[in-house]
């Protein structure tokens, strides 16, 4: 295990304990900027850790999460890189410094720890949570169909054996409920970006209805800007739009719920890659993926800062 976050190998995938240790090291090294909040426990009792980057009290917040689908390893690895990037750039990069002088950033790197552990030890292709389903031999719920936004509608499954099983009720999964409780108790989250892989898309609400979001024009323009920034680094091809028009109808999704809670700048990412490795993106692509994604995240966070609501 590396002794500090400078020794940490960002160009490789890591197990759960190593990433938990990374978080603790980052907090220890930058205690004036970073703290760790435990917002709940997973079904199997693992802590749901959120890194809070803050330079003052009572600030509005910006949320980032990675790895809600456990097999999408490039997202957790990117989350680690983002955390290090934030502490490295604060005080050096004027744009990020300005953001952090006015907003807190919350980063949940391992959003589905039971699933992640399961992908590391038992089944690399596991996507869902690990809570058993009474009456079924199939385990787990798709945590991106478990939110109270069109819950139970088209684009989610009622079968526990399906990869898109919605669960018995909205927010039934502790991994989801923890974020719901956190967002509600915070009360002042201004942007929310949930990161997945792999289709190279940046999506905004809605997924459960064809009714356009009331801020669709602004969300679309900001998506265009964010993707232009992303593509400026390696020219990775991305598409963007609302979930339902760009990819498919999906009910009970994360950002539909956050948008309906009043978080205007709600987006979900699908990172690299298109049609070569899928969920098994080679580790040498972690840093390029994170680097390009960071440019888009900065565009969204800067826009959020510059357009208070």
């Amino acid at each position, binding site marked *: 295990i590396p002794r500090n976050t400078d020794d940490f*190998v960002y160009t490789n995938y890591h197990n759960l304990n190593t990433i938990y240790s990374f978080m603790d090291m980052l907090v220890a090294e930058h205690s004036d900027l970073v703290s760790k909040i435990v917002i709940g426990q997973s079904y199997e009792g693992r802590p749901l850790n959120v890194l809070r980057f803050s330079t003052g009290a009572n600030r509005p917040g910006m949320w980032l999460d990675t790895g809600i689908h456990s097999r999408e390893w490039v997202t957790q690895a990117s989350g680690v890189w983002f955390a290090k990037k934030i502490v490295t750039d604060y005080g050096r990069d004027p744009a990020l410094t300005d953001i952090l002088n006015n907003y807190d950033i919350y980063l949940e790197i391992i959003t589905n720890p039971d699933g992640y552990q399961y992908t590391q030890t*038992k089944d*690399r*292709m596991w996507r869902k949570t690990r809570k058993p389903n009474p009456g079924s031999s199939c385990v787990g719920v798709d945590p991106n169909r478990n939110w109270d936004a069109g819950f139970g509608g088209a684009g989610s499954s009622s079968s526990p054996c399906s990869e898109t099983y919605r669960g018995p009720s909205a927010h039934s999964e502790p991994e989801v409920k923890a974020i719901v409780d956190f967002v509600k108790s915070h009360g002042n989250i201004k942007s929310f970006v949930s990161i997945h892989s792999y289709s190279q898309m940046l999506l905004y609400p809605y997924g459960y209805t064809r009714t356009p979001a009331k801020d669709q024009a602004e969300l679309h323009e900001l998506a265009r800007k964010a993707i232009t920034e992303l593509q400026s680094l390696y020219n990775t091809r991305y598409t963007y739009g609302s979930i339902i028009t760009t990819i498919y109808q999906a009910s009970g999704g994360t950002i539909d719920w956050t948008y309906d809670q009043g978080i205007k700048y709600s987006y979900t990412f699908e990172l690299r890659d298109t049609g070569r490795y899928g*969920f098994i993106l080679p*580790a040498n692509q972690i840093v390029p993926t994170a680097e390009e994604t960071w440019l888009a995240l900065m565009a969204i966070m800067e826009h959020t800062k510059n357009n208070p609501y």
Partner: protein
Amino acid sequence: KETFEGHQVLRITANNEAQITLLKELSEQGHLGLDFWMEPIRESLPIDVRVPFNSLQAVRAFLAYNHIEYLVMIEDVQNLLDEEQRQMLKSHV
């Protein structure tokens, strides 16, 4: 531990709505053990599906019979996972 020897990931391109419908029917065949990484939704989006070795012959025959285009995106999933493990171990050491 679940292993994936001989599993392939196929990238399928549907050319019309009828083929999308056929692929949706295929995805409901639970006994084949298919894992759709990208689901059949519309013609403009690719479809990626992990096919267990035991189902490869049936799935390839289904695609050929229905004139549905595809290519092999990952020849052997376990080979890639083994390489991933090697890299993680090497880094840890």
